Every structure is written in C-alpha cells, then in structure tokens.
C-alpha cells in the first residue's frame, strides 16, 4: 500500500477538463515531482489531494484511507499563491498556523526560533509581515508549512520567485526533510530546477500524464542523445551534418541534439574529418525539458507554454 495514491482522478471545471485520468503513487520517505507547463493541471491535482476541491471521479487515498481530512495535521501544504496576514508579526503568524496544526504554544515558539535561525531571519521575528521582502515572506510561509513536522509535505511551485541562493537553501531543506523521513510532493513548471532532486517524477500536460516513473528510469529510457562540444574556431563545417537534429551554438561551446543516441560516434568522426578543433566532447543526458518536449511531440502535440 502506497503512502499516497491517486487512481484515475478526473476533474472538470465547466467544459474545461483540468485533470484527466491521473494516477500515481508516492512511497513513504520519497521526493516526488509533479512537472508540467502552466495550466497543465498541477495545482488542481495538489488541491484535490488536499481535499480543497473534490475530484469528479477517481480516488485519492492516504495510507489506504480515503479521508484525507482525518490526516490533515500530518500534512503540510504550501499553496501556489502565497499570502500571510500582512498586519501580523512574523512570530504570531507562524504561531497561529502552528497551533492550527496542533502544536502547543511553547513547543511552537521553540520551533519558530529554530526555523527562523535556519532561514537566517531571526532578527525579523518581531517585524510585521508587510515589512518583509517577497522572498522572506516566502521563506516564512515555508516555515509555516513544515513547522509541525508533517509526514507529507505538499509544495505548489515552491521555487517560484526565489533567487538562486534561496533556491539552493530551499532545495537543501527539502532534501533534509526527506532524509528525516518526510514524504514530499511538489510541483514546478521550471523543470531544470528539479533535475536530480526527485526520486520519482510525473510529467503532465493538458491534464494528462505523459510520463510517470523514477527519474533515473525516465532518463535512461530517453538515452544520452545530447552532446556538449567545446571548440576553437568555427562549427560551420558540420552544421548540416546528417547526425544532428538540433544545434545550439554559443560560439565556443555548443549543445547538439543527436538524431539517435548511437550517432555520437559518427559525429565525432565527422568533426575530426572536417578539421574542427574540438577541446571537449561529452555525451550528456537529455534535460527533463527536452524529454517533455519529445514526449509531447511523440503524442502529436506541440509545446506552447514550456519555459
């Protein structure tokens, strides 16, 4: 029995199908990524898991139990659109939500100090929320999501709006929480952010599951069909090579997409034959974004809104 399981979940808003036949299962203590462009149905799926909206069909079970509401205190949820009571002090607002999640005041106060220190926000504890920067408020909101040590953490676009430093901080925290035994499911539309972070991913597009598997397996299935080349001079001689499907030339560095994973040998040979001065030639895994684009195209669709 999986920790969290979705089976054939459907949701329509009027005539618009937001989620169509989504199924996946999340094991305890794993990190699960729900990926897809804007409007793919990620938020709707997460809101259905939270029982904020009810699915039209299908079932969502939490350790085999259909009543997610009975386990709310063991879940931490970070909604996509961020907000806190603007007029309240940082301490009070975290305390309020911690108490709602079932923590006692004393216990919560200790946790608040510990977390603020971790987030390097200790000196803001008595400031009002509307004095914080957007990134700080977002960190505070992350604290409110995890302060009660939930078994399941649901994060809707946790990285949006964060600078690289805070993004790294958040990634590390998420991994730390997972290692402490929490199960994490999060959504993002910026797929590069999650490379190597997830144990398992689900790529969704227009409400449907494209790929659902372990990250390693996904990458393996798509093989290494990309090459990074560093060179001196010009790549012009091989621009129209038979082995290349796509080329992104940066002048001294280029990303090449191969027609097939095996054609790297032929390409290397051609580079040598045509006298290109190659200083580095490396086979790389496709990015999730490439996998996504390929899967969409394989199903006869086009990607309009994948950043």
């Amino acid at each position, binding site marked *: 029995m999986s920790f969290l399981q979705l089976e054939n979940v459907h949701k329509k808003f009027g005539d618009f199908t937001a989620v169509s036949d989504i199924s996946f299962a999340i094991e305890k203590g794993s990190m699960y990524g729900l990926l897809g462009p804007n409007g793919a149905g990620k938020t709707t799926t997460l809101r259905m898991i939270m029982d904020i909206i009810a699915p039209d069909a299908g079932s969502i079970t939490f350790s085999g139990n259909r009543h997610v509401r009975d386990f709310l205190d063991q879940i931490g949820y970070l*909604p996509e*659109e961020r907000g806190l009571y603007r007029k309240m002090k940082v301490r009070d607002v975290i305390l309020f939500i911690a*108490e709602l999640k079932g923590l006692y005041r004393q216990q919560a106060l200790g946790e608040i100090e510990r977390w603020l220190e971790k987030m390097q926000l200790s000196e803001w504890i008595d400031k009002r929320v509307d004095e914080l920067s957007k990134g700080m408020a977002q960190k505070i909101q992350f604290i409110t999501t995890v302060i009660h040590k939930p078994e399941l953490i649901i994060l809707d676009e946790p990285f949006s709006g964060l600078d690289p430093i805070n993004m790294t901080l958040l990634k590390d925290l998420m991994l730390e929480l997972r290692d402490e035994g929490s199960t994490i499911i999060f959504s993002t539309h910026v797929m590069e952010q999650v490379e190597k972070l997830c144990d398992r991913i689900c790529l969704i597009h227009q409400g449907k599951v494209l790929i659902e598997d372990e990250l390693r397996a996904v990458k393996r299935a798509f093989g290494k069909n990309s090459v990074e080349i560093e060179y001196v001079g010009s790549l012009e001689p091989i621009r129209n090579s038979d082995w290349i499907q796509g080329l992104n030339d940066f002048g001294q560095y280029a990303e090449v997409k191969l027609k097939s994973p095996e054609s790297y040998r032929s390409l290397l040979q051609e580079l040598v034959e045509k006298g290109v001065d190659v200083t580095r030639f490396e086979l790389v895994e496709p990015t999730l974004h490439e996998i996504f684009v390929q899967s969409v195209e394989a199903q006869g669709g086009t990607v309009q809104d994948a950043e």
Partner: protein
Amino acid sequence: MPNKIVTVIKREYMTRVRSKGFIVSLFLMPVLMCALVLLSSFLAYVGDTTEEMRKLAVIDETREIFTQMQAAIAGHPTFQHKGELIYELVEESAATEVPEITFRERVNTKDLYAYLAIPKDVFANGEVRFYARTTTNFDVQRALRRIISDIVRDKRFAESGYSQHEVSQLMRSVKFSAYAIKSSKGKAGGAEVESPIETGARIGLGYILVFVLYMFVIIYANSIMRSVLEEKTTRIVEVIVSSIKPYQLLLGKLVGVCSVCLTMFAIWVLFGVLLIMNISPLLRIFGIESLPVQMLQIIVTVKVSSTEVLIYFFIYFIIGFFMYSTLYAVVGAICGSEEEAQQTGAPLTMLIVVPFILMFQLFRIPDSTLSVLLSHVPFFSPILMFMRINVLMPPLWEILLNILVVCTTVLLVMLISGKIYRVGILMYGKRPTLRQLWQWARY
C-alpha cells in the same frame, strides 16, 4: 491537542484588541457620542446663525398690522442674533399697485429675504401668504404666524370689548405634562408613574443603546467581510482550511470579533458605573457641590433602568451581530475584491438600515400592530424589538418568543451561510449567480 476554534478566536480577538483602531474607538466613541448630542442641542439652541440683515417685505392691505408686527419682532428671539435684530421689516403699501411679481423677482435676486402678503379680510378669514426662496425656515414661519395671529386675535377681542389685560389673562394656556405609567409587574401598591424627566432619561439611554447596536453591527460586520476577503485573496485560507473545517474558521472568526465588541461595551459599562457611583466626589474636584434636581433625577433613572435594558442590549446585540456578520462573511467569501464586496453587500446593508430608519417613526407608536409585526420580522428584531423594550416594555413571553424565533433564524442563516462560505472561500474568478449559491447551499 489545542482547541483549534479557540486558536482562531484568539487570533481574531488579539489582533483586533491590540490594534490602534480598538484603543482609538474605545476612547473616541464616547467622546463622539457626547459631541453629537451636544452639537445637536447646540444647533437647536443657536438656530439661525446668519449675521447679515434680512429684509422682509410686508404687503399689508389692512394698513394696521405692520406697525404692531415691527414692535413684536423687535422683542422676539427668532429674529435676533446675539441680541441684535437681524430682520428689517419693510412696509409695502398695497395701494402702490406694484404687481406681486416684482416682489418675487426681488426675493430671487436676494434683495428681499422674503415677503409677506396680508389680505384685507385677514380679520375675518383671509389667508396670509409667505414667499421665500426656501420654506424650510420653519422657525421664522412659526414666529410670524404666532405674531400675526396674536395681533389679529387682539383686534378681534378688542372689537368685542375686552381689554388687553383681560385677553392675556383669558388666553393663558394650560400646563400640560406627560407621565408614563410603569408596568406594575405584580408589585404591591399598584402602578407607579414616571416623571417626564425620568421618561426622557430612560428613552435617551435606550436611544443611545440602539444607536450603538446599529453602529457596531454595521462596522464590525464589514470588518468581518474584509477579514474573510483578506484570507481569501491572500490564499491563506487554503492553509487554514487544510487544518480546520471552514465552519470552524467562520465560527471562530464570529466569536472572536463579537468578543472584541463585548469587551469594548464591558469597559464602557464599567466606566459608566464607576462614574455614576463616584459622581459627587468627582464633581467636587471641579468645584461643583451639588447638581440640579433634574440631573440627579436623570442619574437615578439611568441607575435604576440600565441593568434590565443592558441585559436586553447584550442579548439583541449578540443576536444581531451573528445574523448580519454571517451574511457579510458570505459576501466576503463569494467576492474577489473589496469593491465587488462593497457592491454585493449593499443590499444587505438595507436589512439593518431599514429597521433603523423605521425606528424613528415606530417609536411613537410602539404598541401599534405595525410596530409589533415589524418587530417580529427576524432581521428587524435586533433594532425594532430592542426599541420596543426601551419605549414600552412588551410582555416577557413576547420577548422570549421573539428571542427564540430570531435565534432559530440566526442558526438557519449560519447553517446555509456556512455551506456557501465553505465553497466560496476556495473559488476564484467570476462571482457566482444566485442559482449557483443555492446549489452551494444544498451541496
């Protein structure tokens, strides 16, 4: 496990009580209330405040009233400002054959303040006509009517052979005072009566209380609406309802804010009691040894009648608060912005403004069928029933029945509202139609 409704109540209560707004209202409201009372009595006392001379033309066809009018006006307070006469009477002889239209022109160009046409047959049955740019200057009209009536009456008496002295002796008006009979409530010694001052004090207290009830329900119902809207627009509500049920959030919010109001009232009542109990030593500080009898009577009346009235005040305030605030919370829940909410909430405001306006008429006929019926309309009861209790106490069974009916209504309203609220706070985009609301309510 801490009680989560208590957590919500605590937050609503603490954030409001700690806010500057609360402290300010705590002190400012009584000050404003006193200022309002003082201002209205001041305006009534001062009356007309203009200082410029006003010309009043009199077309006197009788040719004998004008002179007497001039004398009468000189000694009449309505025509004076700070002891100076500010009205000038100008006699316009009817014989000059000036058409009235020219007077109208002169009034229009503000050359004349007004003009008065006194017909020849005024001693018989003629009509005195008063023309001015506005006829809302009732004080002036009343005074002129009085003065001319006296002149005409004196003349009639004189013609019948009575002297001036005899006339004023004969025409004295009767002293007339109204006494309210208190309900005896089985007390020995029969029904007691109340002096006009006591009645005034009692009704005055009731009037203030109805006003406070009305104002607080409106202000705090709106505050709840904004608070619901804030939680919705900041999406924090999603986090909250992932911890507690929406109805718990709504209930906690209502109880929390209601407690804020009750705290404020309690402080005022406490302050009032302390003030009344220590009135003499307090006055002595200001060098006042004793109060006029009327003031003492007022204080005693307030002391005696306030307990019962305050109990009913608290009951009807709590009922009214929950009734209106629940509805306003729903408005907040189904709207997406403050402007939208203000518009949607406007019809609801009528539910409390209408009985408040009706009250000004109905308090004169507290036991009429109309008053009784309207006071039993659940949405009007907090104001109209409370008004009846203040003016003419209805039988106890009627009040209890009313409280029962209104409480039931409040519960029903909360039940239906709770369901709409539950759906509304998590819905974004277009405001739902009435039909959708109905679906949500049955969901």
